[in-house]
């Protein structure tokens, strides 16, 4: 298992490098000009100088290698220096955002907590709701609970978040006025009062995401439970004279969790990336919001970096899902 993990990690290196090349080239080849947003009164020569100052004068492979160096070496060093205060950076150049001229790494570091709070909570609640619903739906297949649950998850899965989000805002913010429609990232939780305000503003985005995630995972859970409920070993367990609770929770649920756990693990990168639209609707100042802003502003270094981080997360969680599968299912041994 350990050697397998190491080997997979080693194989991940070329994968990530190829992804970085594709991400870099795709965005580099895309039309667009970093000076396009500047006033038209700036003369052409000055524009050219600005481009040179941004490093666009170099040939593409030099720019790629420099970006790669900054991405993989300099940025992690700066992050380490920021966290520990050690002087390890040697003032190496960093990836600069064309919009703000500040390091991309710093912007991302500022944005990640909001994303993790809102989207992460949405995912956790989604999973917590989905598992019991999936289990009960499968155990009582075709009961009214199952019918309602299947219908709701079908709706939750097929209706996009930009629709549910707007509907929730309309109902709970505009008509009822219970919750704010915007997420205020400057709010600091200091006392009970601000805590209540934080809870109020997080409820809508979290419920939009929880509904979406829960509908997906509960369907998986239900299908996986149904697969296992009809297996022969369940009949064996009943014939042993076990309690129904033991049969369902120990035998069926544990076996059903194998695929579900991997689906949950594979969904975690989407916690970072998949909520772009929801963040946009509720004005959550997170990573997805930053990505959309950077795309609008033609801020190519920012887009490249965020896309690359998503790609690395997806590769990483794929590996984690595979390793989890091996740990959970004794029939699978990677050697």
């Amino acid at each position, binding site marked *: 298992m350990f050697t397998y993990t190491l080997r997979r990690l080693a194989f991940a290196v070329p994968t990530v490098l190829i992804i970085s090349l594709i991400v870099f080239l795709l965005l580099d080849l895309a039309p667009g000009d970093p000076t396009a947003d500047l006033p038209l009164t700036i003369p052409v020569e000055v524009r050219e100088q600005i481009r040179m100052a941004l490093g666009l004068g170099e040939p593409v492979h030099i720019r790629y290698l420099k970006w790669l160096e900054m991405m993989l070496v300099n940025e992690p060093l700066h992050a380490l220096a920021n966290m520990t205060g050690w002087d390890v950076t040697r003032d190496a150049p960093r990836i600069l955002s064309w919009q703000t001229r500040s390091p991309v790494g710093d912007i991302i570091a500022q944005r990640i907590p909001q994303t993790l709070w809102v989207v992460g909570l949405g995912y956790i609640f989604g999973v917590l709701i989905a598992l019991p619903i999936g289990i009960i739906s499968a155990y009582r297949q*075709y009961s009214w609970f199952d019918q309602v649950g299947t219908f709701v998850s079908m709706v939750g899965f097929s209706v996009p978040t930009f629709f549910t989000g707007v509907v929730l805002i309309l109902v709970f913010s505009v008509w009822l006025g219970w919750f704010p429609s915007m997420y205020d990232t400057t709010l600091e939780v200091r006392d009970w009062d601000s805590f209540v305000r934080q809870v109020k503003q997080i409820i809508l985005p979290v419920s939009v995401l929880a509904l979406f995630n829960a509908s997906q995972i509960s369907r998986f859970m239900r299908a996986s439970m149904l697969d296992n409920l009809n*297996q*022969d*070993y369940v*009949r*064996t*367990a*009943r*014939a*042993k*004279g*076990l*309690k*129904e609770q*033991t049969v369902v929770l120990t*035998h069926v649920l*544990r*076996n059903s969790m194998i695929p579900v756990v991997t689906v949950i693990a594979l969904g975690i990168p989407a916690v970072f990336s998949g909520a772009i639209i929801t963040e946009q609707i509720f004005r959550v100042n997170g990573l997805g919001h930053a990505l959309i802003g950077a795309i609008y502003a033609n801020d190519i270094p920012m887009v490249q970096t965020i896309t690359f981080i998503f790609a690395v997360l997806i590769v990483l969680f794929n590996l984690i899902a595979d390793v989890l599968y091996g740990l*959970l*299912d*004794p*029939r699978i041994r990677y050697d």
Partner: protein
Amino acid sequence: MADGAREPLVQVRGLKMHFPITSGLLRRQVGAVKAVDDVSFDILPRETLGMVGESGCGKSTTGRAVLRLYDITAGSIRIEGAEIGSLSQTALRRLRPKMQMVFQDPQASLNPRMTVAAIIGEPLDEHTRWGRRERLDRIYELMDAVGLNRNFANRYPHEFSGGQRQRIGIARALALNPAFIVCDEPIAALDVSIQAQVVNLLEELQERFGLTYLFISHDLSMVRHIATRVAVMYLGKIVELAPREALYADPLHPYSQALLSAVPDPDPSLAEKVERIILTGDVPSPSSPPQGCNFCTRCPQVMPVCREIEPETREVSHGRFVACHLHDATHDPTGGRTPGTRQEPNQQGVTR
């Protein structure tokens, strides 16, 4: 055991297992698959009742229904005198140690995520209050009994061969010292060479622990080898029930005759002489069995009465029961009684 009037260990009367067919928007019941329809038999202590029949005739359903792995539609099942036909599943749990089952598919019937020790030991956790030491001792004892190496206790089912897995299944069934074991085609999924090993193991365990088997199989020669008495099923009903020797020598029901004529004879010169009875047509659907006798659509000796009146099960001679109009006239004066109670007492000891 010379007393002819031994109390049966298992007594099944009028067992019916119908599975509902639903259709339409409101899932109303429009019919039922009569998988087992009015089956009665007895099994005496320490004997093996073989149950044969073609695929889909209700053998396995009967086996599962007898252990109440299904909620039966109707009928009475008494095991060691205790009525279990109408007990709730919760109440049944306490009786499970007495009655166990060896399943057909040794791969699928073992939880893939549990080790052998966990599979065998789980019933002990549930029904005893033993400590770790006692529990482990018992697991090792059972593994020895079925011929599994003790060192395999911490392995998972997929690491074993089919025959070994079936041994795990048997050890599991034996864990709580059952009196009655339903063997639901325990050898069907195994290689021929392994089949013999497993059947010999089952016989050896029967000898050692005084077990009673209901041995379900479609392998007629294997049933002939292991069974004391044999029941032949067709379309949810027992058509003939007789001591093994008598049945194989002289089957009375036309279906039994056809079924047994299909057994290949290893001697080529004899095989040429055997007249093979080939049935025409298909088995009718168990959701709409024919009127009268279930076998009337395919019976080579069908009579007009067969299409109208369902034949009763009659004892045509000592211990031989058959449900066929051909034997209406010849039946024993004591006929029409419930089958099984008067069985040849010496069948158990017949040399094979």
